[in-house]
């Protein structure tokens, strides 16, 4: 071969190889985009696989509490103080401790604190508000343990204090099995994989009665612990494989068309986008009985981008309860159908005109890749900036908006149109039913309202009259009516009382320091409620009030109150608190709830309490 020919031939060979490779890529790209393969609902790749191509999105998701929703127990993941200090609740002493790198709960004999049983923590659930702990049991079962670590208050809390039940509970009242429950919404690609379903079914057919949670065996798997990329974008193994082809990637960049191998919620219709979040933030049941078996074996059939309602029935106030208390679902909603627990955000949104008429969807305000990880929302959107997209300038045209602004009050869209009225994870959350305040109608309907929640020392009549006055239809308020929030604090059911207790001392409540101070005796009365959750919120509000007033001795006395301590201990602490506080003659008797000397009117409070619905609320957490 001549010396001149060799380089030319080499070049030709290189060019041919390049063309062949490019041609193959081009054919593959065209084919995979024109006729995409059906998505494999179980082909998960894991977030690490996503990271190499999407490092920024991976990093922004990594900041969220979604990522750390479920973790293997380790020094890095465990937040609780496993320091050997004994905690005693509901008569059972427990010592959280560590040994050989393991995190342990030692269950002690109440008589002499000797160790009766030791349980090792296998996994953690949650990392934002509080952290639950799971132990691994027989038959592949993960069992939720009764003590939880409250991150905000940096203390152990018994689960009985986190639910809406009264004090009459057992130590293991809220024992739960992770495999057919928590696994679904706290992980990616959950598969409970029950292994003895047929045997259990035969026993049921023979008429045996047993607790299936104790008898079932599991071989549970998840694609990834925690809520990762593929929960919202769908299984990504095919997407990762297809996009090894550079021509396919560049073609998608140029054309700006959607990649059929993956789901981008921002390209979905508002309804479908909301359903991506709603697969967990919208409590639901399998859509058809035959799907129950599927849920217990390979997990829920819904994948991001699909029509959620083809797979599930969203729980509403009127949804029939498959087993147990027929009012279970009814009690999870306010009488007008508005959800009053967290994890029903989709149902709330779907009741909103902003959704049905304006196409509002979750990602209009929230983002897994931006803003504050708590709530996954930017500071602007937290104050209602997203509303401006459709309602630009409305702050200058509606009388209520102008009046609030003129009074110097700092109110945001969400304060009035998404009031705090939903209980969940030991906090009161904003309603996701975006609506206008209607104080009189909401009071009649036994639910909180934005006006009377913020102006918690005012009656519903007062709020209604103010609204009518602003709209040019003046009416006379009833001067003696009991403030609606305080009425619900005593006469409401457990959710009403919890919401009212929280709002009574909320940092952003429209209350003067004098009005806050006047309410303290009523908050002390609420700290003797039969429901631990109500007591805690009343205590938080009293503490907030003491802080606003700068009353250090009262703050100190309040610090000695434990809402889940034994009744005698609580009574003692409450007595010390009351002794520390000297009421003043109130400017307003709060509809008779305060006596002339500023003390709480126990007779009226008892009368209101007699009206209260005392049923526990099964919140399904």
């Amino acid at each position, binding site marked *: 071969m001549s010396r001149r020919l060799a380089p030319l031939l080499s070049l030709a060979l290189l060019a041919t190889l390049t063309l062949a490779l490019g041609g193959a890529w081009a054919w593959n790209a065209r084919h995979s985009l024109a006729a995409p393969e059906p998505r494999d609902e179980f082909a998960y790749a894991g977030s690490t696989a996503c990271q190499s*191509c*999407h*490092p*920024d*999105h991976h990093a922004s998701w990594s900041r969220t509490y979604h990522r750390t929703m479920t973790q293997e127990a380790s020094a890095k993941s465990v937040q609780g103080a496993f320091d050997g200090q004994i905690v005693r609740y509901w008569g059972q002493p427990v010592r959280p401790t560590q040994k050989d790198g393991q995190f342990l709960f030692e269950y002690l004999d109440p008589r002499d604190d000797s160790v009766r049983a030791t349980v090792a923590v296998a996994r953690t659930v949650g990392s934002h508000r509080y952290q639950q702990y799971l132990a691994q049991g027989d038959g592949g079962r993960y069992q939720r343990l009764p003590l939880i670590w409250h991150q905000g208050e940096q203390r152990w809390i018994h689960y009985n204090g986190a639910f809406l039940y009264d004090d009459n509970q057992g130590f293991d009242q809220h024992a739960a099995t992770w495999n057919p429950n928590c696994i679904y919404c706290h992980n990616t690609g959950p598969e409970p994989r029950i292994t003895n379903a047929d045997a259990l079914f035969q026993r049921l057919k023979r008429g045996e009665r047993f607790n299936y949670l104790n008898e079932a065996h599991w071989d549970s798997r998840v694609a990834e612990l925690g809520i990762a990329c593929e929960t919202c974008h769908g299984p990504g193994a095919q997407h990762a494989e297809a996009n090894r082809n*550079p021509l396919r*990637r*560049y073609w998608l*960049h140029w054309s700006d068309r959607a990649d059929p191998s993956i789901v981008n919620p921002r390209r979905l219709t508002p309804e479908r986008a909301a359903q991506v979040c709603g697969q967990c933030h919208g409590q639901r049941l399998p859509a058809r009985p035959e799907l129950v078996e599927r849920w217990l074996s390979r997990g829920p059939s819904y994948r991001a981008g699909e029509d959620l309602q083809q797979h599930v029935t969203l729980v509403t106030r009127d949804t029939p309860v498959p087993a147990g208390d027929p009012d279970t679902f009814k009690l999870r909603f306010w009488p007008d159908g508005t959800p009053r627990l967290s994890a029903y955000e989709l149902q709330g949104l779907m009741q909103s005109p902003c959704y049905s008429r304006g196409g509002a969807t979750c990602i209009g305000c929230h983002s897994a890749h931006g803003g504050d990880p708590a709530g996954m929302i930017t500071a602007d959107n937290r104050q209602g900036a997203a509303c401006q997209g459709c309602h630009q300038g409305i702050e200058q045209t509606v009388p209520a908006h102008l009046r609030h602004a003129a009074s110097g009050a700092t109110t945001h869209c969400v304060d009035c149109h998404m009031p705090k009225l939903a209980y969940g994870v030991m906090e009161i959350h904003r309603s996701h039913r975006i609506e206008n305040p209607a104080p009189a109608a909401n009071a009649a309907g036994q639910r909180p309202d934005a006006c009377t929640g913020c102006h918690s020392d005012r009656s519903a009549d007062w709020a209604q009259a103010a609204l009518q006055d602003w709209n040019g239809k003046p009416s006379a308020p009833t001067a003696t009516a009991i403030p609606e929030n305080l009425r619900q604090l005593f006469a409401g059911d457990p959710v009403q009382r919890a919401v009212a207790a929280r709002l009574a001392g909320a940092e952003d409540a429209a209350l003067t320091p004098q009005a806050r101070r006047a309410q303290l005796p009523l908050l002390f009365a609420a700290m003797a409620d039969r429901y631990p959750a109500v007591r805690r919120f009343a205590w938080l509000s009293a503490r907030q009030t003491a802080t606003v007033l700068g009353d250090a001795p009262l703050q100190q006395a309040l610090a000695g109150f434990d809402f889940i301590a034994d009744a005698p201990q609580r009574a003692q602490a409450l007595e010390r608190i009351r002794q520390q506080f000297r009421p003043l003659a109130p400017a307003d008797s709060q509809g008779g709830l305060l006596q002339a000397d500023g003390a709480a009117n126990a007779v009226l409070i008892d009368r209101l309490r007699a009206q209260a619905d005392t049923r526990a609320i099964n919140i399904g957490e």
Partner: protein
Amino acid sequence: MSVNPSPNTGADPALDLAVRAHLRYGTTALMLFLLGGLALEFLHLIKAPWYLDHHLRRELWVLGHAHGALLAVLNLAWAAVLPRLPAAAGSGWALRWGAALVPAGFLLGGIGNSESDPSLAILATPAGAALLLYALFALSRAAWKR
């Protein structure tokens, strides 16, 4: 220190021109890419988010700076060895173009890039790499030539 820009290349003016071309490119590019390095450090200094927070852009620009400086040095080395391997002088253009295209691809690929891929300007990099390969092949061949 005095530098003789016309090393002893004998009486071959063509070779002398070739050496001078590599010296010009090498010294100028080295200065520019060192200035580029200073610019990158400055972006760290002012914590420029459009640089620091874009992993791919950051990586591409660092690669562009490093390759540019290294290939500038390669041109200087080429100029030093060329008098002993005059047969490679004809492929010097490929070395200079390759030394320019490789970093240019990296630097421009980091502008208008997506999260996962450089912009299309990155195509300059493999083209430049091919030219570099060709030049080094010619140099190697000249070295083996008796």
